[in-house]
């Protein structure tokens, strides 16, 4: 039996644990790390089962090339040669920006950095993006504009220090379970106040002092109205506002238009609820905002994020323990993938590609010329472009857009239209069904690297077993492709060398090295080798200097319920499954827990449609219809349906609408109009 300390591959909480390996190089268990700063010897159910999928017989084990419509096993050389030649072919026919590189929040920082480097340095396009587009692109933009840094301002241990926690849009006990438990502990042991603003009666709502069940998509009027009350009652922190912020007058003007009575009507709640929330939040010495997809996944996602930041600044709750604006990142390394510049507009460390000086710096470091300065596609617009025919080739590493992007039929049409699609993954997916080349990658257990958790903590991922069969770590595949494409600058002896390069070109990671992050990691910004890392951002000064109030006005969601489609459909994750389900649905206990696609429906709605608990039913939108089991529960509010997107046989994203936030291009996963019927 061998034990290897590594970081959990599921959510962004970043728990570390030991993987247990038997004499046959099979993973046979998990042991929590009792010393780890976040895990503290604890884990959630996904963590306890995180070893299970690795040795699953479905693993992709050899490269595959589609020949005459049929996938055939080939050697690595043949597969990689084809990838390089086809990508080049597409680019020479349609221009550099006719190829799209999709990186992955599941892979390591090093791999994201290399994918970014491959796209920019080798294939000379800024068409590099990943699924942060679908979850927190609105955060990165909204917080960058208001605070100057698009990450969680505080640390996980601040959850235990807050006097009031305002939770809006995450289901923490299911999606970031150990963060959720810190909130529970603070509430039950220390008596911290808890405000939950969420349509669903999530577990935290049972323990909340106030639970507001507004209408989906009315975040802006709700938050504006809270600020309206705070200002009207003189509860704002004037000292903080005057010393640390700018543009306050404009905020005052905008929120003045949202008195509680008016907002209450839009939000479908009472004015008193708004007043209560405002008073409780403003009264707390240390008040914290915790938010997630419920805020970000809207066509007004950036506006929502800005309103959260405005509220925190208005009450002086930024830059100190137990406060802050805390977006919870949903995947193990979605923070890191953003940090590494797997985004079209920035290099690693959020250095803008439009800045010629930055480009020069990277040209020098990477020994290349003419790095592109033009921003063309995000993941979501790339799919649109592929459907229109202007995008010709796609290289997807560790993502499953058929399951995770909105409007599956639209995605299918796009993938089918591509001249060339390469998918690099650990299991076959319905996305790889459309691939011309499939490259077998390794799981987290078979490679070294780092993940960056939601609290900006860069932590080690350590190899526990040898790559299964012919699968290879993503970073090695990327390096080989670069070399085959004629680029000499992507050769590394180890992943540690890649991190050293990252540190040399990325100021916020400047002090990160494998030696220093050995056990509990370091939180960025960490500019130099002597810097202890940063637990709390914006302490004396905002990253952008002064915090900027950026008020927003209410824009309704794109597709509202009507007579034909009377329900609001919202989507998300469940506790036992993760994203497109490729890993959790291959883990015995997790799969057993929730084996079938389902929809959460209120008891009243179920009764009105004669739908029995546990029976099959249909949910339909203007995009299509899906058969799911009825999970009849008072978690769901009357008139609102919630579906997790894990099930390929009942895909929620067949139903969702491809409507994007104009700035962040994030899809509106949280609101579309639906109808239901009983299955016979």
């Amino acid at each position, binding site marked *: 039996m061998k034990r290897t300390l590594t970081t959990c591959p599921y959510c962004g909480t970043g728990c570390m644990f030991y993987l*247990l390996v038997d004499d046959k190089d099979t993973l046979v268990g998990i042991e929590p790390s009792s010393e780890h700063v976040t895990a503290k010897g604890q*884990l959630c159910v996904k963590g306890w089962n995180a070893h299970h999928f690795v040795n699953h017989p479905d693993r992709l084990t050899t490269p595959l090339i589609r020949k005459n419509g049929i996938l055939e096993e080939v050697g690595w050389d043949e597969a990689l040669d084809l990838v390089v030649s086809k990508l080049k072919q597409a680019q020479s026919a349609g221009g550099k920006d006719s190829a799209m590189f999709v990186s992955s929040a599941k892979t390591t920082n090093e791999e994201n950095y290399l994918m970014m480097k491959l796209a920019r340095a080798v294939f000379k396009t800024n068409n590099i993006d990943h699924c942060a587009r679908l979850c927190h692109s609105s955060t990165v933009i909204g917080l960058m504009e208001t605070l100057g840094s698009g990450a969680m301002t505080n640390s996980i241990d601040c959850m235990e220090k807050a006097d009031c926690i305002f939770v809006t849009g995450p289901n923490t006990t299911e999606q970031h379970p150990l963060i959720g438990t810190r909130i529970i502990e603070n509430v039950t042991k220390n008596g911290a106040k808890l405000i939950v603003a969420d349509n669903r009666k999530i577990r935290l709502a049972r323990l909340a002092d106030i639970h507001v069940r507004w209408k989906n998509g009315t975040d802006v009027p709700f938050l504006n109205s809270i600020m309206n009350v705070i200002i009207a009652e003189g509860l704002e922190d004037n000292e903080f506002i005057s010393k640390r912020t700018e543009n306050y007058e404009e905020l005052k003007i905008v929120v003045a238009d949202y008195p509680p009575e008016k907002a209450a009507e839009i939000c479908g709640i009472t004015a008193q609820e708004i007043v209560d929330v405002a008073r409780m939040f403003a009264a707390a010495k240390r008040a914290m905002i915790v938010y997630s997809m419920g805020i970000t996944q809207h066509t007004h996602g950036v506006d929502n994020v800005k309103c959260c930041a405005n509220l925190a600044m208005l009450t002086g709750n930024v830059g100190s323990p137990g406060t802050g604006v805390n977006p919870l990142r949903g995947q193990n390394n979605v923070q890191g993938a953003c940090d590494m510049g797997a985004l079209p507009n920035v290099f690693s460390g959020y250095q803008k590609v439009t800045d010629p000086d930055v480009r020069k710096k990277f040209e020098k470091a990477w020994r290349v010329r003419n790095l592109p300065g033009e921003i063309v596609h995000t993941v979501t617009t790339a799919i649109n472009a592929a459907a229109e025919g202007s995008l010709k080739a796609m290289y997807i590493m560790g993502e499953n857009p058929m399951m995770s992007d909105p409007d599956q039929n639209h995605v299918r049409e796009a993938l089918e239209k591509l001249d060339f699609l390469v998918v690099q993954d650990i299991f076959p997916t319905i996305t790889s069904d459309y691939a011309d080349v499939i490259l077998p990658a390794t799981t987290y257990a078979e490679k070294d690297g780092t993940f960056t958790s939601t609290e900006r903590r860069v932590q080690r991922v350590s190899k526990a077993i040898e790559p299964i069969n012919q699968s290879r770590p993503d970073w090695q595949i990327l390096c080989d492709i670069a070399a085959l494409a004629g680029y000499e600058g992507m050769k590394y002896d180890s992943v540690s060398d890649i991190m050293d390069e990252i540190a040399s070109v990325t100021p916020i990671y400047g002090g990160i090295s494998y030696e220093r992050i050995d056990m509990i990691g370091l939180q960025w910004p960490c500019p130099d080798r002597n810097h202890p890392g940063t637990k709390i951002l914006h302490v004396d000064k905002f990253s952008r200097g002064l915090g900027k109030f950026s008020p927003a006005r209410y824009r309704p969601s794109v597709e509202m319920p009507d007579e034909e489609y009377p329900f609001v459909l919202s989507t998300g994750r469940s506790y036992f499954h993760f994203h497109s389900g490729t890993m959790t649905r291959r883990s015995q206990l997790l799969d057993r827990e929730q084996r079938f696609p389902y929809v959460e429906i209120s008891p009243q709605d179920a009764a009105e449609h004669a739908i029995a608990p546990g029976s099959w039913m249909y949910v339909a939108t203007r995009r299509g219809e899906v058969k799911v089991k009825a999970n009849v529960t008072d978690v769901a509010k009357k008139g609102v349906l919630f579906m997790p997107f894990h099930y390929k046989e009942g895909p929620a994203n067949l139903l969702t609408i491809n409507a994007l936030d104009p700035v962040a291009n994030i899809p509106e996963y949280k609101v579309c109009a639906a109808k239901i019927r009983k299955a016979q």
Partner: protein
Amino acid sequence: MKVLVLTEQKLMEFLASARTAYDVRVPVSLHDGTRVIGRLGEGPLAIKGGAINQKITSIFFPHMETVLKCSNGGFESPEPAPKPMLVVGFTKQDADCLEFIDRFYNDKFRDDVYFNKRDNAVIVCVSGRCGANGKLLKVSGDNCDMELICDGQDYIVRAYTDVGKSLIEDIGSTEIVPEETLEQIEKESDQLCVEGLDLLNAASKLLLEDKVPDEFWQSISDRCIACTSCNLACPTCTCFDVFDRTNGCGIDRWRIWDSCQLDGFMREASGHNPMGQELIRTRRRIHHKLAADVTRWGHITCYQCGRCDNVCPTGIGIMSVCKEMVEKYG
């Protein structure tokens, strides 16, 4: 008084020599300081520091193990390991837990997969002045083969079984220690733990008399996120699930730790689920150890090892729940 006393160095030598006949497992400190029962040399020896956080009985009932191999239509059961284990690091409570699950796995049907590892294994308890934060660990007495009673620095070695005694004889030399040292430790040890046991007994009585209403279980289950850590850390939790997995040359049947805190634990293929409500599952977790097992085995099957209280991220381990229960209904 003449007893065998070993310095940590001497103990290390003894354990190293025992490796010829035994697969030796000892508390070690891993990379980040986490203490586990590991192989000699897997990390620095870490006998001092109190109970190991890991489910101690995982030595014999691991997280996941094969129970059957199927190939070409034939079946093959796992064989016992070539060498029996010698395991150091059980506390008195841990040894009690092991003694119970020995009985459990031997009852009516003998679980040979468990006994493949358990048979002939030598259990070495650790006690005395080497608990967490310098606390005294209860002296085990005779519920093990051998015991290391720490005087704060060195280990006084006592053997209880024939195997234990012959192992001691192999070491040979004995030393004189002041009689009062051992006496004092044992005296202090006798006064330990009464409080926790009283609490469990009181809670057990409430449960057996059916005095705990559903509202109580609902309020506890509101705080349960079904992480399953309580079950997976508990040395007397024995539940497992079974699944098949193909490998290169056949199919392995595995068992994996399961948890009664999961909705799917009892759910049948038809959808029927006798434990389909949160509060019923939360109740079972406590009731099983403190009431159901009292009826079945004649005693409580929680030995106050403290693991579930340590590992529960929301503070509803068995002792915390019992405290709340007894305060409310006792």
